[in-house]
């Protein structure tokens, strides 16, 4: 077994044994998915085929939060000092953190779609494709978490993490379309990557990409690459400076 997988296994155990992480990453999104189907809201956003991808994205924002908390906790405990004296390399840490959250992402996706299908979403191969696409998107949310966890203390991760949750709720278009507000808000939604993420997953699920613009793809790719690189740079930096 490689050092990276060994580290990922440990991280996964730490996460799955934290009841709060399960409540927010799984129970809360499931509850919202169920709740919003109980009212007949006339807006398109709340139709199952639109709202299920939204809930997946909402769940990812908590993946960011708990990844950040795990990294910040590890950083401030002597645990990373012990590992720092071991032959583990930077890539083992970063990939180990990313890998450890992917099973959680898969569990989320499968559960959310399962409940959606039970509530009436039509089962199709598009669901499988959407799960695969959203696993890729989740890497952006995980590296955002690693970046936050490298920058601030464990206390700070709660604050920054909830900003990410809020941004996902308000700027992705999951609850209301951006043109219902318009103006500067609309521009902010376009600059941030969350609407792009949602357009990509919804498009995959509907097998219809008419809502997806080239700008969406560009914005998403820029964020994906930039945040991944920044998370590697800052984690490495903090890993050394914390031990200075």
């Amino acid at each position, binding site marked *: *077994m490689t*050092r990276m997988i*060994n*580290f990922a*296994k*440990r991280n996964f*155990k*730490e996460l799955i*044994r*934290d009841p709060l992480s399960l409540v927010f990453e799984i129970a809360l999104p499931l509850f919202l998915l169920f709740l919003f189907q109980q009212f007949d809201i006339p807006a398109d956003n709340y139709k199952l085929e639109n709202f299920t991808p939204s809930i997946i994205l909402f769940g990812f924002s908590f993946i960011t939060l708990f990844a950040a908390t795990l990294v910040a906790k590890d950083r401030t*405990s*002597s*645990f990373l*000092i*012990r*590992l*720092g*004296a*071991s*032959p*583990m390399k930077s890539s083992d840490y970063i990939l180990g953190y990313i890998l450890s959250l992917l099973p959680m992402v898969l569990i989320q996706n499968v559960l959310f779609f399962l409940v959606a299908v039970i509530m009436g979403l039509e089962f199709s191969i598009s669901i499988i494709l959407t799960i695969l696409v959203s696993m890729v998107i989740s890497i952006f949310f995980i590296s955002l978490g690693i970046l936050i966890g490298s920058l601030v203390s464990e206390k700070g991760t709660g604050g920054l993490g909830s900003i990410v949750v809020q941004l996902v709720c308000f700027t992705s278009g999951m609850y209301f379309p951006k043109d219902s507000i318009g103006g500067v808000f609309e521009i902010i939604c376009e600059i941030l990557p969350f609407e792009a993420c949602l357009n990509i997953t919804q498009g995959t699920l509907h097998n219809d990409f008419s809502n997806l613009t080239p700008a969406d793809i560009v914005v998403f790719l820029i964020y994906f690459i930039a945040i991944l690189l920044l998370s590697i740079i800052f984690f490495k930096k903090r890993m*050394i400076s914390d*031990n*200075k």
Partner: protein
Amino acid sequence: MVAIVTRKLTKKFKDKVAVNEIDLKIKQGELFALLGVNGAGKTTTIKMLSGLILPTSGDIVIDNMNMKKDIFKIKEILNISPQETAIAPNLTVKENLEFMAGVYRIKDKGNKINELIKQFKLDEILTKRAKTLSGGWQRKVSIAISLINDPKILFLDEPTLGLDVIARKELWKIIEGLKGKITIILTTHYMEEAESLSDRIGIMANGNLVDIGTSKELIRKTKTKNFEDAFVSIATRGE
């Protein structure tokens, strides 16, 4: 055989000189204590010797390998029990041992883990989550973990800090049991700990390694009656 050599080992944090041109020579199998008050530079020295932080200047040679060139080879043969207890909180004691065995890619890990369980009498806490253990147990586990790769060189940073008398005496016994087989560098600010456990003692003050010797030699040199007086006499020289 010499296990560790340093030449003018120095660490500066901005203007603060935490470790100042230290020359050390530690023999294989020796238990060497770094003794000094808080802030003397013990932890910083240990962090440089274990490859955690880079020196500002100076050289480290461990087991005939230069730290600058062979850091990853050196890391294979050493281990550290950090000043604060370093174990994965939500993992059980057994899982912590297995995890670290994975980090060092131990081949026969089942046997090694069982050996440590016996040696440290960990049976009763094996399935407990690390964060639920008492301070004494956590420290014991932390030291047990640091033996997972059969290190040639072991760093123990303040191993008994914050422990009660009984837990401390128990740890002393364990450390004495390791003596001779492994080269151990232990830091402490408890004089009786340095005196009763170690072969030689290096006294640090303000980043300087002020004097080195056996406790008897240091008492003789300073013409004092006991080791405590000798320590005070030497440590104040460094100021």
